[in-house]
């Protein structure tokens, strides 16, 4: 697994994949989708897919795929080597969602939540696989949240595919387990090899950030020690997680955006115009030209 594209610019999301095995372009195939790193406040979230001919499913079982959560990191690395070694009959692709991309999406003016982001990513990966010529028939998706709604959504987009969305799919279907291993290995490597652009010779950044889960004391300690009063955190941190934003409320200077407190704001202009209409001296009112340009006469250089 070569993550160098992502490592070159970890502020942006990135897709990495294997060669498409010739056999998957002919024989009908199954595809599994799983994600890794959804919960942590740190690092990327990774979507993984794995696909192989339906006829190869027994071989998958023999390779020893199981619920990836029960596997150690070493076991996962080994299994990924097995996947990579079986390149003649199975392919994989991962989509790394940079923590910065996750923050940007979730904090957008128009709401874009993590579920939608996940769904869109999964859909993109399926489409990509179809576009690469793989003869897809069955798709197995692991999910959190409402499986049937998600399944309906996917079926609406890919009516020709036989799609199964279910919780714990990685324990039930070896192809999802394989996908899960790809995702987890990528996430682990991306976190381990994270290059902080915020790191300089004078300001080293500690790697003792724990698992990245908000409940991990090491993670919390690391976050609290990392705060810059103006910028908050390095982009390794998902600013959109409440764990992160609460620490900033506490330790960083307030930053105000124009889409915050919208109800409060909406009422304000009419209050102003109410008074303006009643009492404003026409002498003090600048021409519309200036008002539209937020141009004011400077009457003092106070501080």
């Amino acid at each position, binding site marked *: 697994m070569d993550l160098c594209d992502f490592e070159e*610019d970890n502020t942006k999301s990135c897709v990495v994949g294997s060669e498409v095995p010739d056999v998957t372009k002919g024989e009908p195939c199954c595809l599994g989708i799983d994600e890794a790193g959804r919960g942590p406040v740190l690092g990327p979230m990774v979507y993984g897919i794995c696909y192989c001919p339906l006829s190869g499913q027994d071989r998958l079982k023999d390779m020893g795929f199981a619920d990836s959560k029960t596997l150690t990191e070493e076991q996962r690395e080994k299994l990924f080597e097995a996947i990579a070694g079986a390149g003649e009959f199975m392919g994989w692709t991962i989509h790394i969602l940079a923590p*910065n991309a996750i923050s940007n999406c979730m904090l957008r003016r128009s709401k874009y939540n993590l579920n939608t982001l996940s769904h869109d990513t999964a859909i993109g990966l399926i489409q990509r696989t179809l576009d690469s010529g793989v003869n897809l028939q069955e798709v197995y998706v692991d999910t959190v949240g409402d499986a049937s709604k998600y399944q309906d959504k996917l079926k609406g987009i890919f009516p020709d595919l036989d799609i199964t969305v279910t919780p714990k799919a990685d324990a039930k279907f070896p192809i999802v387990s394989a996908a899960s291993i790809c995702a987890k290995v990528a996430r682990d490597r991306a976190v381990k090899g994270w290059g902080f*652009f915020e790191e300089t010779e004078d300001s080293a950044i500690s790697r003792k950030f724990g698992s990245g889960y908000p409940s991990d004391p090491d993670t919390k300690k690391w976050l609290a020690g990392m705060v810059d009063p*103006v910028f908050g955190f390095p982009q390794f941190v998902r*600013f959109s997680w409440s764990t992160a934003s609460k620490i900033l409320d506490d330790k960083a200077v307030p930053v105000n955006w124009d*889409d915050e407190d919208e109800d409060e704001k909406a009422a304000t202009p009419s209050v102003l115009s109410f008074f303006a209409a009643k009492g404003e001296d026409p002498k003090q009112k600048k021409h519309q030209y200036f008002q539209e340009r937020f141009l004011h006469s400077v009457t003092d*250089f106070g*501080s």
Partner: protein
Amino acid sequence: MSVEVDLSGVSGETAAAAKLHLLPCEVEHTGPAQVTRFFTPGVRDSGQGALQASFRGRELRGENVALPDGYTGLVLKEKHKAVSDEEARVFHAAQKFQEFTYWNMETPPSKNDGLQKALHWLEITKAIHSPVDKNISQNGSHTRVKVEDSSP
């Protein structure tokens, strides 16, 4: 009250060019900030001068804005406050700039942004404040008076 402007700090070739970013948010703080550590390395050029960056997890879209010909940007600093009304205030020109980076939240900058419209003032004001041509006024016709775009 009057304030003298000391330009000695920005004269000659040695004048420090300030890198300025106009942010789409209000930071409730004035003071040192590690801009080149946390912000600048994350700025990406997405082609044709369109810039992208993040601040506090939020997506910024920006572009470099050059000041119109004939204008110079200065950062004026008041190093110490005048103690009494008698004492003259002095602003020191600390840095010079010819362009700055303008940032919007998520939306790419456009000519309808307040800033772009405000910079229009630097042109329009010349028509209001340049002297009128007396000769043309005498004949009272509607002859178009050509406004000189002379440097102010």
